[in-house]
C-alpha cells in the first residue's frame, strides 16, 4: 500500500480539515466501442486546486476518458459532473490542451489567447454590426491576453503565428489560451509529448508554478484558481507535476471479482487500480529523484504489470491517505 511521502513544498493545496470542494466527479462511468469494452465502472472525485495525473498502459482508455470529460464522446453509462452539473457536450467550464493542433494557425499568439474572451464576451452580430464598440473591446481583451503572456514569459512572441513559434512556445500559448477562460478544470492530453527534453522540463515547471499559485491563493484565504487533470505516459512527469496520481489499467482481477460481464475471458474494460498522493515539488528546487523512483516503481507494479492481477482497492488509497477513509473515491 502506498504511503504518503515527504514533500519539498511546505503546504499542500489539499486541506484535509475541510470538506472536499469537488470540481470533477465521475459516477459509474462505462464506455465501449461495440463489443470492445474500454472503461469499466469509473468513480472519481477531483478536488479544486488539485493537479491530478492520469497514467496507464497504452490503449487503456485514458484519452477516451478525457474525451468523456470534455463532452465530445459521452460515456455509454454513468455520469460525468463538473461542479455538480452533468456534462452533455464541450463547454467553457473545461479547458483543453492537446498534444497537437493546440492553436488556431490563422491567429497570432496574443489573438489565440484573446480568442476565448472575445467569443465569451461578445456575439457574432455585435462584432459584425458594431465595429467601433467592438474595436474598443478588442483592445481591452488583447491587453488582458498580453498580460497573461507576459506572466508566462512569452512577451517576445506575442505577434508571432503558431508556425513561427517552437513547440514549447505553442503549448505555453495553448495553456494561456485555456487559462484565460478561468475554467473549472483544465484538461491536458499528453501536452508535452512532442517536446524535447529541455522544453518539456520548462513546461513541467510552469505547471508546478501554477500549483504553487494555488497554494499561495489558498494561504491568503482564497479559492485555488487552477484544477488540472493531465494525461501523460511519462511516469516521472506525472509524479513531478501532480499532487495525485490516478492509474487506469485493464490489468486487474476482473475474472476473480466476477466482473467478466462481457463474456468469458473478456475484460470488461479498464478501471482505476491506483489513486494515491504524489510528492509536491517546487520548480525552484532540485528534483528529488529518490521520491520519483520510489513511486514510479510502485505505479509500474500496480498499473503497468500485465502479469500481476491487481486488486483495485489495494492501490486506490488517495482518500484513505487524505481523510482516513472519511470520503469515498
Amino acid at each position, binding site marked *: 500500500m502506498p504511503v504518503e511521502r515527504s514533500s519539498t513544498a511546505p503546504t499542500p493545496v489539499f486541506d484535509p480539515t475541510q470538506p472536499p470542494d469537488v470540481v470533477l466527479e465521475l459516477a459509474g462511468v462505462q464506455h465501449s466501442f461495440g463489443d470492445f469494452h474500454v472503461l469499466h465502472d469509473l468513480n472519481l472525485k477531483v478536488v479544486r486546486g488539485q493537479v491530478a495525473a492520469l497514467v496507464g498502459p497504452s490503449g487503456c482508455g485514458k484519452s477516451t476518458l478525457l474525451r468523456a470529460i470534455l463532452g465530445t464522446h459521452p460515456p455509454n453509462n454513468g455520469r460525468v459532473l463538473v461542479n455538480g452539473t452533468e456534462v452533455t457536450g464541450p*463547454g467553457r467550464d473545461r479547458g483543453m490542451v492537446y498534444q497537437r493542433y493546440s492553436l488556431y494557425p490563422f491567429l497570432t499568439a496574443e489573438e489565440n489567447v484573446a480568442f476565448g474572451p472575445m467569443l465569451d464576451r461578445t456575439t457574432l452580430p455585435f462584432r459584425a454590426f458594431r465595429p467601433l464598440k467592438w474595436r474598443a473591446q478588442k483592445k481591452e481583451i488583447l491587453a488582458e491576453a498580453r498580460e497573461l503572456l507576459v506572466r508566462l514569459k512569452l512577451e517576445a512572441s506575442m505577434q508571432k503565428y503558431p508556425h513561427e513559434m517552437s513547440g514549447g512556445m505553442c503549448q505555453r500559448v495553448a495553456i494561456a489560451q485555456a487559462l484565460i477562460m478561468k475554467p473549472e478544470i483544465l484538461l491536458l492530453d499528453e501536452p508535452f509529448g512532442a517536446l524535447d527534453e529541455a522544453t518539456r522540463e520548462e513546461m513541467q515547471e510552469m505547471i508546478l508554478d501554477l500549483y504553487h499559485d494555488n497554494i499561495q491563493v489558498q494561504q491568503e484565504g482564497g479559492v485555488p484558481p487552477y484544477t488540472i487533470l493531465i494525461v501523460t505516459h511519462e511516469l516521472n512527469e506525472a509524479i513531478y507535476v501532480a499532487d495525485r496520481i490516478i492509474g487506469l489499467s485493464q490489468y486487474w482481477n476482473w475474472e476473480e471479482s466476477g466482473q467478466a460481464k462481457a463474456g468469458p475471458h473478456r475484460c470488461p474494460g479498464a478501471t482505476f487500480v491506483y489513486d494515491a498522493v504524489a510528492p509536491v515539488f517546487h520548480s525552484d528546487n532540485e528534483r528529488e529523484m529518490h521520491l520519483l523512483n520510489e513511486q514510479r516503481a510502485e505505479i509500474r507494479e500496480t498499473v503497468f504489470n500485465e502479469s500481476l492481477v491487481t486488486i483495485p482497492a489495494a492501490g486506490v488509497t488517495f482518500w484513505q491517505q487524505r481523510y482516513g477513509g472519511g470520503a469515498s473515491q
Partner: protein
Amino acid sequence: MIRSPIRYRTRVILGVVGVLVVALAYTWLSYRQHQINPTDQTIPTWQQLAAGVGKVLEVDEFSGDRWLVTDVKATFYRLFVGMASGVFLSVVLGLLMGCYSAMEALFHPTLSFLAKIPPTAMMAVFFVLVGINFEMYVCMIAFGVMPSLAQTVYLSARNDVPDELIHKSYTLGASQAEVIWNVIYKQTLPKVLDAARLQMGPAMVFLIAAEWMVGAEGFGYRIKIQQRLLDMRVVYVYLIVLGGAGFLLDTALIRLRRRLCPWYAE
C-alpha cells in the same frame, strides 16, 4: 539537379529571354508572311499592331465610343459579378457541406454530377431559361465555377480543420455559427482564394464563348467580328489585353491572399 534553386538574377534573365524568343519568332513569322503577301493582316507586323492599338482606342464613328473601353467595361463587369456570385454561393454551400453531414448528403451528389458537365455545353439551357441579357452571363459564370469551387471549399472545411480545434472552440465559448465563421471559414479562406483564382481562367472561357455567340459588346463579340473581317491587328491587341488582365488579376488575388492570410505557408 532536380529542384535545385537558381539565383533571382538568373530567373529574371531567363524570363526575359523567354519573352524575347517568342517576340523574335513572331517577328520572323510576320516577316516571312509579308514577303509572300505585303498586304497580309493575319500575322500583322509590329507597325500594324501599333495601328491596331490606335484603332481600338479611337472613338468609333458609329457608336461614339472607344471599342476597348466599352468591351473592357462589359466583359470585366460581367466577370466580376459572375465570379462574386459564384464564389459566394460556393463558400456557403461548401461550408454547409463541410460542417453538416445532412447538407453533404443533400448537395454533394448533385454538385459532383454538375461538375462533370462543361458549362459551355450548358449555354443552350441558360439562353432558354435566362435569356441573352446580363443575367445570363452572370448565371453562366456563377454556375460554371460553383460545382468545383464548392467542392474545394467543402473538402477544405472537412479535412483542413482538425476536430481538436473545433472541440477547443466550444470550450472557449463559441457557438456553432462562431465555429463556422471564426474557425472553419477563417482556416479555409486561403484555399478559397486560391481556388477562386484558378477558376478565373475557366470563367473567362465561359464568358468569351457566350459573348462570341450572343454578345453585342465585350471581348468575345469584338474578337468574333474582327476575325470575320480578317483584321487580326485588333484580335491580337485584344488577346494581349486579355493576357495582361488575367496576369494582373492573378497577381492581385495572390497579393490579397497574402494580405488576408499572412499565416498561410505557400
